C-alpha cells in the first residue's frame, strides 16, 4: 500500500503558519539591525581600538565562526542561567542570532572599511572633520555600499538558520510546524509546506533587501 499525500489540514493551519512566519521575520529584523550595528563597532574596534580589544574581537570572531549555532544557542539559553543571567526564549534567540551574525559580518564590514581608499579619510580630515565624523559620514557609507551584497547573503543565511531556535521553544515557523505535525500526523506534508514558506521568505527577503539597499545606498547595489 502506497502512502497518499493529504493537504486537507492546510486551510485550518494557514493562520498558525502565518504567525510563525511573522515571528521568524521579527527575529531576523532585530538580528539584522543589532548585528549590523554590533559588527560596525566590532570592525572599527578591530582596526583602530586598543590592542587588548583587537585581540578580544579576534578571539570572539574565531570562536563564533568555528562552533555550531545550535551549541551557541544552548550555551546561552541553558548555560547562562547558572551565572545568574536568565533570559526568556525569544531574548535568548535574538541574542544568540545577533552574536552569531556579528561574528560573520565583522569580517564583511572590515573588508568594506579596508576597501575605502585611504585618501578619503585624509581628505575629510584635511577639511576639518572630526575623526568620528570622518568615520560615520565618509568612510562607513562607502564601505556599506561595497559590502551590501555580502551582507544581504549573510542576513538570508541567518534567517534560514533561525529555524534552530525552535529547539528552545521560540514560537517561530519551525516550532509551529512541529506543533502542526504533532496534531495532524502529516509530518511530511507539514514540513514540505513550511519548507516552501521558507523558500518564499528567503527569496522575498533577498529581493526586499536588494531593492531597499538600492534606494538607501544609491545605484550600483546589486
Amino acid at each position, binding site marked *: 500500500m502506497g*502512502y497518499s499525500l493529504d493537504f486537507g489540514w492546510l486551510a485550518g493551519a494557514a493562520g498558525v503558519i502565518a504567525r510563525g512566519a511573522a515571528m521568524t521575520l521579527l527575529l531576523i529584523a532585530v538580528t539584522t539591525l543589532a548585528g549590523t550595528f554590533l559588527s560596525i563597532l566590532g570592525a572599527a574596534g578591530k582596526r583602530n581600538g586598543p590592542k587588548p580589544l583587537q585581540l578580544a574581537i579576534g578571539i570572539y570572531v*574565531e*570562536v563564533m*565562526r*568555528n*562552533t*555550531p*549555532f*545550535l*551549541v*551557541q544557542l*544552548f*550555551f546561552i539559553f*541553558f*548555560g*547562562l*542561567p*547558572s*551565572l545568574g543571567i536568565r533570559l526568556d526564549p525569544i531574548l535568548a534567540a535574538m541574542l544568540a542570532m545577533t552574536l552569531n551574525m556579528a561574528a*560573520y559580518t565583522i569580517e564583511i564590514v572590515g573588508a568594506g572599511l579596508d576597501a575605502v581608499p585611504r585618501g578619503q579619510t585624509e581628505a575629510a580630515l584635511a577639511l576639518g572633520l572630526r575623526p568620528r565624523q570622518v568615520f560615520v559620514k565618509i568612510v562607513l557609507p562607502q564601505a556599506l555600499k561595497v559590502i551590501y551584497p555580502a551582507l544581504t547573503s549573510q542576513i*538570508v543565511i541567518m534567517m*534560514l*538558520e*533561525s*529555524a*534552530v531556535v*525552535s*529547539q528552545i521553544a521560540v514560537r517561530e515557523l*519551525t516550532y509551529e*510546524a512541529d506543533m502542526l*505535525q504533532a496534531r495532524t500526523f502529516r*509530518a*511530511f506534508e507539514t*514540513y*514540505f509546506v*513550511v*519548507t516552501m514558506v*521558507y*523558500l518564499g521568505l*528567503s*527569496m522575498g527577503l533577498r529581493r526586499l533587501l536588494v531593492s531597499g539597499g538600492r534606494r538607501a545606498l544609491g545605484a550600483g547595489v546589486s
Partner: protein
Amino acid sequence: MIEFTFWDIVRNLLLAARWTVLLSLAAFIGGALVGLVVLFFRIAKNKWVKRIASGYIALFQGTPLLMQLFLMFFGLPMLGLRIEPWTAAVLGLTFFASAYLAEIWRGGVDALPRGQWDAGASLGLHYLQELRLIILPQAFAITRAPTVGFLVQLIKSTALTSIIGFEELVRTSNAINNATFEPFKVYGLVALIFFVMCFPLTQYARRLERRGCALSRFMYVD
C-alpha cells in the same frame, strides 16, 4: 543517581564526537559525488538541464537545513525505507553539501578563460575528456579554499542531526546535561570540541586563500 566526574563527561563527549567526524566525512564524500553530478548538469550546454541544476541549488540554498533533514526523515518511510536517524542524517547532509559544492566548483569552472575549452577542443578532445583533463583539475585547484571552508560549515551543520535523533556530539551532550545539570560546563566543552575540529581547517582554508592564485580570492564563498 550516577555521579559524573569531569573526566566521565569529557570521555563520553569525545566518544560521541567520533560520530560527528564520521558523519561529516560521509556527508562530505557523498556530497562531493552528488555535487559532481549537479556540476555536470549546471555547466551543461542544454538550457533546460542547466535550469534544473540551478533550481536544485537554489532549493537547497534557500531553505533551512533543519527542514531538509525533517523532510528526509519523514519522507524516506514513504519510499518504503525505515525511519533511521543515521540514514536521514547522511542523505540529508549529502544533498545539502552537493548543492553548495556544485555552486562553489561552478565558480571555478566559470573563472577559467574560454581559451582553455578552445585549446582542448583544438587538441581533438571531446567534451568529457576536456572536462576530465583540463577544466575540472583547474577548477578544483582554484576553489580549494572555499571547498575547505565549506567543510567547516558542514561539520558545524552536523549538530542539527541531533534534532532528528542522531546520536552525535550535541545529542549526547543534551543527555549528559539532563543527568548532570551543568549546562555551562557541558555545552562549553562541546563548543571546545567543535572548535578544535574546525579551527585548524579554517586556518588551512585561510592559508590556501592567501597563497592561492588571485582568482580564488574573488570567488570565495563562505
